[in-house]
């Protein structure tokens, strides 16, 4: 009995001392840790995602519940003390664990200003690539009305779908929630899930869409002046939206340029076509926009394919495998381009000469 008591007392004493020491230690180190984490968050995170802010101030109060998963909300102030943006810290559930990130939003334009991945435990070389700027830069100045979905408005990372989806979805959702919490009224866009098991189509480039006006000189470099024949005029060949006439310095009509649409594998392929009137040949074609599969159908944009059409006579058959070399694994896309160019060029020439 005395032995047992001794054992119990020894263990109790040891654990009590241990607990006491740790308690003291904790009290001493925690403020340092917290202060450091906060400066870290502001210095390395918030300043990166709201570069124009001069100072940051913590925001404590909002409407209703603070959004779940959002740990810190700060407002970014300019030198005059005006609020120019909101920065907050949140975490997405990645493939291996939480992905902590800083997000900056502009409540005025309802856009994401930028995001930065603060910490994560994703697999190196795969999920860890969410840190790369090529991925995070996609969120810069992105409207909150966008769906924030990988495969539709965000390009995911190959072999890291889960990590990139998590980041994209969380940024969009939490940004809207934080702004709503702070009293701004942001609507959640209606998100259409891609229909399974159809493969996810690559979205069209999110850059400024090209229009025919920008490429006119590229198509018909000799021409001095262009005049538009009119948009949506009666009698214009179907699927041809705009026709331009090109004149040389003597006022002589030398060429035609028009914009048309081919039916590709992933959707519409918009292209601009230039015609040399005298020789009835193509002066060149240019793909303006498309939504073909990246790496396959999208290769219709490559010069190797497009150059084949330069100087091509309109009386040629424009058939893949005969007078046009198609793209391996993208037969549908290349056939669509070649066929449409031939047909529409003949129709446009006909239409303009009558």
């Amino acid at each position: 009995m005395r032995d047992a008591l001794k054992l119990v007392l020894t263990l109790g004493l040891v654990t009590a001392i241990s607990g006491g020491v740790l308690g003291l230690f904790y009290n001493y180190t925690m403020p340092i840790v917290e202060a450091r984490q906060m400066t870290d968050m502001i210095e390395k995170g918030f300043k990166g995602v709201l570069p124009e802010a001069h100072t940051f101030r913590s925001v404590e109060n909002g409407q209703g519940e603070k959004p779940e998963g959002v740990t810190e909300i700060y407002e970014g102030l300019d030198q005059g003390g005006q609020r120019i943006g909101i920065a907050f810290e949140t975490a997405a559930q990645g493939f291996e664990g939480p992905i902590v990130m800083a997000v900056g939003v502009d409540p005025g334009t309802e856009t994401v200003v930028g995001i930065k991945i603060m910490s994560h435990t994703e697999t190196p070389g795969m999920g860890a690539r969410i840190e790369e700027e090529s991925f995070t830069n996609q969120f810069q100045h992105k409207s909150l009305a966008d769906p924030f979905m990988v495969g539709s408005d965000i390009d995911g990372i190959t072999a890291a779908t889960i990590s990139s989806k998590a980041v994209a979805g969380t940024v969009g959702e939490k940004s809207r929630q934080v702004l709503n919490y702070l009293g701004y009224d942001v609507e959640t866009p209606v998100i259409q899930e891609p229909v399974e098991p159809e493969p996810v189509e690559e979205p069209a480039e999110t850059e400024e869409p090209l229009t025919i006006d920008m490429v006119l000189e590229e198509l018909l470099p000799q021409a001095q002046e262009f005049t538009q024949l009119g948009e949506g005029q009666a009698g214009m060949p179907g699927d041809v939206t705009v026709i331009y006439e090109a004149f040389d310095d003597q006022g002589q009509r030398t060429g035609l340029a028009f914009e048309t649409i081919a039916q590709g594998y992933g959707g519409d392929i918009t292209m601009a076509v230039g015609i040399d009137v005298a020789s009835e040949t193509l002066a060149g074609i240019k793909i303006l926009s498309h939504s073909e599969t990246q790496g396959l159908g999208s290769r219709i944009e490559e010069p190797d394919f497009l150059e084949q059409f330069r100087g091509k006579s309109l009386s040629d058959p424009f058939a893949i495998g005969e007078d046009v070399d198609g793209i391996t694994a993208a037969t549908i896309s290349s056939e669509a381009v070649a066929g449409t160019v031939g047909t529409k060029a003949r129709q446009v020439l006909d239409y303009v000469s009558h």
Partner: protein
Amino acid sequence: MAVAKSKGEGIYQLTLISSPPPHIHAAISVDRIVHMTIASLLPGVIWLLYLFGWQALRVMVLAVGAAILTEMAVMKLRGKENTVYDGTAVVTGLILAFTLPPTAPSWIVVLGAVIAIALGKQVFGGTGCNPFNPAIVGRVFLGVAFPTQLNVWIGPHSSETIASPLELWVAGEALPDYGEILAGTAGSFMGEFAFVALLLGGLILILRGYVDWRVPVGLFGAVAVFMACLGQDPLWHLLTGGVVLGAFYLAGDPVTNPITPWGRLVFGIGVGLCFGIIRYYGQDPDALFFAILLMNGLVPLLNRFLRSRRRGAAA
């Protein structure tokens, strides 16, 4: 039996368990298996040289050369008699070459062969003692270490990059038809371009009894049934993904097979199922290699559970 139950179980089990006769490999010497295997690969080698020219030759020569040199070096290091003349290193190097694209950078090919022989075979005790197929070990190492370098596909007779059948399938594009695959115009790693030649070689190996028919049959069957159940075209998945190379030359490697006939059938089915799962759900171009590596790891277990109980019992 007492030995098998002792602590030394595991990778040594193959040499310690005494199973009821007949012993399939007993009558055949290592030399003859090796010579026959190399001979059966020749149609494939010639076909690939025709398709890819010097690039394929480069990969094969480097893989075989590096395998031979590594074998010699490690044998010297281990102070063992030089067994390089038994030719198993040549087979490993050649099969490794079949699992690589013709564009594989030279140093990657050499590294793969070194890993295959040193880490896939010699660390376990050399010829006949390796639990994993050495070529697979080398290929999986390369696949995990250098995915971008190994997933570039070049079409035959040209220097143009093509999409592999798997990529087309994942992207939902028009798939190459059976004719294109049989003619060797669609594929990813070299073995996938040589379907007919490898099938021919494999059948020779089976007829000569060097590969147990149960492994390829189980593998083909499992892939076909699995894909059919998922509404996929089973034949198409049998023709692509290097299944034929895997069935005869990688999974069929007698050294890494279970010792009982039943075990070999289950082994083949297991490889087929793992392959189907990894390929269908993971869409991984290396599915075949991972599947075989996994099942190689399960062989001691299969040996334990699918052992014929006693002489004369139904096996």
